[in-house]
């Protein structure tokens, strides 16, 4: 069974890797490959599920090879399969297969045929990794893959402005979710002093003993899980990203945002339920989020006048209810609900273009004129108020903008002196001085590190904020996001015992990615003269290879599981002790911004409308 499970997880990865090497214009081969890979996977999944049912629904736990180990830290492959995984695998494989078959015809002759299927396979790999993951690390790996493939699919029509803008928006919310998961992982390390597997979480006394002695941590852990689940499942207050993700071809919207991707939040809750089930406060929080989402998105769904946003909000209402069900411990019901909702919304999205002829025809026979209502009674005013609020999506976007993004941008403007040559030089010189003082003086008094550590963390943060708001030079911004990693590493490592090995693991990937990015941007600059970040420039139109290379560099720098930085990041967090909760929050926040700043560079340089050649360019508004 275990080998079977491993095979199930690796088939999509294999397909993805093969797909990368198929020529772009070979539609036939691309579609055949995707069909075979997803088809085989679906058939095997159903057989596997049947076999698993036959053998008596025993949870499967698998501990694989260890990738890295030191002290009480161990990064190892771990898979876990239970009824939650089984349901998600059943629904996921069936829908992905149907959508793949659908898209083979639907995308015929579309520019980006290869990109579409590569991304679908990548998504599918991430999805399978998540639902079969056995510990937080593997879960996080799948989570990251899902995030990037989402970004790429939303920005599928990368030569228009809105898809790129919305892809960045969704990515930023996902990134917040990442932090929740990252902190949850960190807390679980602190609580159990090991990379705990999901199977062990079922051990009631193990979990309960630790949580009941660390109630604050326990609650914080639950909230972090809730944060990541809410971000990924577009719960309140993040709901407005979901309709905006509907920028790709209809089938991809259907499978991602109608069904699979958006239900992953519910999966996280189900998977980690032993961690929060015994905390009434946490359960209340989850239920409240679910309930608030259900009510708000339901009112939004009612006022939507576009078909896809209507389906998106309706789907969210049901996911909100699922959160409530999960918080009440009705796991089987939630799973059943998930399956039905996923199928229903996928189909509704797929047939959504038919709505015009269907409803117009129905109107011809059944039209009822409007009833005039008095809108100036109290009830009437309440009605119009709710209408207007729903139309404005309860200002959720506005709130995030006002309380999250705008302060960062303002801060970024404050530190703009950093890009002056003089300011920059002074800044770097001081930083290097501080660094070397710590690194090469073994006898630094402990008190000093107490001060230095926050300073370094803050400087790193300033760097990344600056990079995030930089408008002039892409290369400057790129270098700054890289420097942030150095500062973070420094700040964390000087706090306790300094570990060179961990530093190397962390920074080697960073340096590699920086180098690759630096070279690609440099090449592009020599060809295109200027690389400002003030506008989207869409250089991928004429520099396809550079675009791909730079994307790889971006992934490396954001800690995507392709370099050692992915493990390094986890390691660095591992160094933060329980007394330094603030540090963990601070580092993770700069990690969010860092990722955003990086994808912003990629998007602004390579994506968006390209005005340099003899080709049609869409209006920005379209």
């Amino acid at each position, binding site marked *: 069974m275990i080998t079977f499970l491993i095979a199930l997880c690796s088939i999509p990865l294999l397909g993805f890797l093969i797909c990368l090497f198929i020529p772009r214009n070979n539609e036939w081969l691309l579609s055949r490959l995707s069909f075979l890979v997803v088809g085989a996977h679906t058939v095997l999944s159903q057989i596997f599920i049947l076999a698993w049912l036959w053998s008596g629904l025993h949870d499967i736990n698998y501990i694989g090879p260890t990738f890295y180990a030191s002290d009480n830290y161990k990064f190892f492959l771990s898979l876990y399969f239970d009824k939650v995984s089984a349901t998600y695998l059943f629904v996921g494989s069936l829908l992905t297969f149907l959508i793949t078959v659908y898209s083979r015809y639907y995308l015929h002759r579309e520019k980006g045929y290869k990109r579409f299927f590569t991304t679908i396979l990548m998504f599918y790999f991430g999805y399978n990794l998540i639902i079969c993951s056995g510990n937080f690390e593997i879960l996080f790996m799948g989570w990251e893959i899902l995030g990037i493939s989402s970004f790429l699919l939303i920005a599928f029509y990368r030569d228009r402005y*809105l898809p790129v803008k919305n892809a960045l928006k969704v990515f930023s919310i996902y990134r917040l979710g990442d932090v929740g998961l990252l902190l949850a992982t960190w807390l679980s390390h602190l609580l159990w002093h090991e990379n705990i597997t999901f199977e062990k979480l079922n051990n009631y006394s193990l979990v309960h003993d630790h949580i009941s002695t660390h109630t604050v941590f326990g609650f914080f852990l639950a909230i972090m899980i809730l944060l990541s689940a809410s971000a990924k499942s577009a719960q309140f207050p993040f709901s407005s990203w979901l309709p905006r993700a509907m920028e790709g071809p209809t089938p991809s919207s259907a499978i991602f945002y109608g069904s699979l991707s958006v239900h992953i939040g519910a999966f996280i809750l189900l998977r980690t339920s032993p961690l929060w089930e015994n905390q009434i406060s946490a359960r209340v929080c989850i239920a409240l989020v679910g309930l608030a989402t259900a009510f708000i998105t339901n009112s939004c769904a009612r006022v939507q*006048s576009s078909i896809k946003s209507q389906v998106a909000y309706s789907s969210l209402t049901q996911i909100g209810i699922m959160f409530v069900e999960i918080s009440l411990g009705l796991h089987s019901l939630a799973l059943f609900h998930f399956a039905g909702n996923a199928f229903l919304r996928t189909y509704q999205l797929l*047939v959504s273009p038919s709505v015009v002829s269907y409803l117009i025809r129905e109107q011809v026979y059944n039209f009822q004129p409007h009833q005039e209502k008095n809108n100036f009674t109290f009830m009437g005013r309440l009605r119009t108020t709710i209408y207007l609020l729903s139309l404005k999506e309860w200002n959720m976007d506005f709130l995030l903008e006002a309380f999250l993004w705008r302060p960062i941008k303002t801060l970024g403007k404050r530190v703009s002196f950093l890009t002056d040559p003089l300011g920059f030089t002074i800044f770097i010189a001081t930083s290097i001085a501080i660094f070397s003082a710590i690194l090469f003086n073994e006898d630094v008094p402990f008190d000093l590190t107490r001060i230095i550590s926050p300073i370094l963390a803050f400087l790193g943060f300033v760097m990344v904020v600056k990079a995030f708001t930089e*408008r002039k030079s892409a290369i400057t911004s790129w270098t700054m996001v890289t420097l942030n990693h150095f500062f973070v590493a420094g700040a964390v490592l000087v706090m306790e015992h300094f570990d060179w090995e961990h530093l190397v693991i962390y920074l080697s990937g960073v340096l590699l990615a920086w180098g690759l990015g630096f070279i690609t941007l440099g090449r592009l600059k020599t060809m295109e003269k200027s690389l400002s970040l003030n506008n989207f420039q869409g250089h991928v139109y004429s520099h396809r290879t550079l675009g791909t290379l730079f994307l790889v560099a971006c992934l490396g720098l954001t800690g995507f599981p392709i370099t050692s930085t992915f493990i390094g990041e986890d390691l660095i967090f591992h160094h933060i002790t329980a007394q330094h909760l603030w540090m963990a929050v601070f580092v993770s926040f700069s990690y969010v911004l860092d990722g955003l700043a990086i994808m912003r560079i990629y998007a602004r340089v390579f994506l968006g409308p390209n005005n340099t050649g003899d080709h049609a360019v869409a209006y920005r508004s379209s």
Partner: protein
Amino acid sequence: MTMKEIIKELKHYLPAQAPLKDFIHHNTLHAFQNMEFHKALQLSSEIFGAKMYLGLEEYRSLYAKGDITLAAMNRSIELVYGTGADKKEVIEKLTKGTFDCRIQARVGQLRKGWKEVYNLDMDSKVHPALFRFLCNFLDQGIALWGFPMVHMNFIDALRALERSSFVSIFNSGGRAHKLLLDTKTEIEDLLKIVVGNEAMYERYLFEQQMLHPGWSGLVSNIEDQPEALIDSRKITLQEVILFELLLEIDFLDQNKPDWKPLSSVYPVQLDPLFAEVKATELNAVMQTWHTAFEYSHYDQVMAALKSAPAPKVREKTDFQAIFCIDDRESSFRRYIEECHAGAETLSAPGFFGVEFFYQPENGKFYTKLCPAPMTPKYLIKQMDSREKIKTDLHFKQHTHSFIGGWFISQTLGFWSAFKLFISIFKPSMTPATASSLRHMDKVSRLVIENEHVHHHEHGLQVGFTIPEMTDRVYNLLRSIGLVDNFAPIVYLVGHGASSVNNPHYAAYDCGACSGRPGSVNARVFAYMANHHTVRSELSKRGLVIPRTTRFVGALHDTTRDEINFFDEEAIPLDMNPSHQLGQKVFNEALALNSKERSRRFESHNMSDSPASLLEQVRKRSVSLFEPRPELNHATNTLCIVGRRTLTQNVFLDRRVFLNSYDAAIDPEGEILTKILSAAVPVCGGINLEYFFSRVDNEKFGAGTKLPHNVMGLIGVANGIDGDLRPGLPSQMIEVHDPIRLLMIVEHSKDVALKAIQRIPAAFEWIQNDWMIYMSIDPADRATHVYKDGVMIPYAPPAMELPVIKDISKWVESSRDNLPMAILNNGGRS
């Protein structure tokens, strides 16, 4: 100019597309058609930043492949550079020169100031908000909660909403709120706040609206034709501008509290929007390439028409079939004639000269069934329909509610999985399909004859009187030259299309019936022409239809290649054998036609039998995942008004609109004028819409349809925040070559010229080269082309045209455009 005049002028430049259910093809650049074609293109490219021709490299590779001929190139150089130009030198420049092909738009140059001065991206916030309010106000039935106070004018409804709600429409509070509630607020007041300098008002407004042409155009259209909406709304472009300016003020107040009017902080000197553009070298090059590209095609067509052998005289006509002039019917006609020598085909605009509104039984609205510019006075009602309207729960509203959604997702949800499975592996007709047959139930009865002249409903006369019927039958038959030699059966074949998941479904139906199937019109005309009294009235006018002739209405589904006949049971026994023969021939021809169509679909294997290809074509029409149910008018380039003998032995590759006409019964060209006054705008509109959607599919077309989202049942947009996308999606135009319509009239050059000059609107297109006008003399096939007010001789260069022995093999030979050719089907010619 006053504000009213500015807005009126602005409306002229916005896209003229109606809501989706009434898709009507029109010239995308209608506002520029008073200018010479290439000049107009150059100017609009400058204004909108749009691409106007194929790419330079595309032309070069066409030339390298020989698709652009040297002869056409020489002609084109003479036309553009004058007869004295050194052709070698020009060709050298055309094929090897390097040019800066970047396109800069004038629209947006002023509004750019907000970003440059304040670093604010205003449009990215204001547009989505504006679109959301507009779409919710105009929504035709998607939202569960309708816009409150929807019976008011748009701006009054907003005002009432703002007053009754406890929260504001605006985010900054204060100023915008007050300005909205003040009923005396005018656009000028707001422009003073936003723009400042009065001289810039016009420019600012033009840019503001032209940057979201989709919504502005639709509103402007609804303002002019409120009846285009089933659920009517009162809205004007002026109100939209007012609201957009308020949203802009709100945005600026919120993001930059100390902002100043644009013209005071961003003083720029701009070329006026419509200022003449200096002719550039690149422009001459593109114009030359393009003209050469077009003439490479025209030359072939004219050479084929001139040299095709005349068909043999038919010994006996077993049946006649009158089709729509639609280009999609041209190949079907060819196969009918090929399958049976005793078949004669003719064509007229697909509403068959009978204009009326149609009301299906229990229908609450009237549907116009005639060309869009006409306003009929008649109503045709359907009775005794046995069809039940099938429903699909997936479109139902309770799937979106709280409890209903909870219940449905856990029940119907699993049914969806099954349906999805079926629809992918075994597609079939469902309630979601837009089927041409659903337009009118085959077994129903129509009220066609007026009982008494006072029988009116909503100002429309129910049915036609005898004299009204007589006029219509007489006019149609004479215009197509069918005045004698009537066969036992005369079919009137309307056409429609079937597709699923296709918001543009109306564009696939009959353009002459306002984007609806032509079934009702065919049936109505057949009834009239069979009417005993009508026939005796006709014979008084000298048009004698023998008692042994029966007219039968039919509907050809151009997507499914299916045909349905109406009122078959009423065919007298002695004409039944002819009808049975007709049916057999039609069915044979349908399969062959589907084979010819299949060559454009890469997934169809051309070596399959016609019957199997017919099956595949039908499956295509009901497949959710098929964005190309058929290719509609793609590749159209020609319109020929003349006798069938002129075109019967020529292979014109489904590129031609054919209108039957016999010059012999119309020496003065009066009938011709009538024909042209319908054919020129309809065919020209189709041709030009395809032209511009093809050359710039992003700005003039709708882009790819794969991400389209249906907005309020009236338009499509990308995602949920995007502007509406008028024009044709890329899937409809990708195989189309942008070539201006060549209108060929079979008459002497003088009559041809006179006939077109009588129609000023149509003549404008020809004068300004938006359409090429040629005549071919019925006597000696001498050809002339219109140039600068006269018809000048035009002789296609001598060329060797392919001769087709076996049409079935011929269409298998390529998936791309085939050359024009001579048909030589054994003993036929």
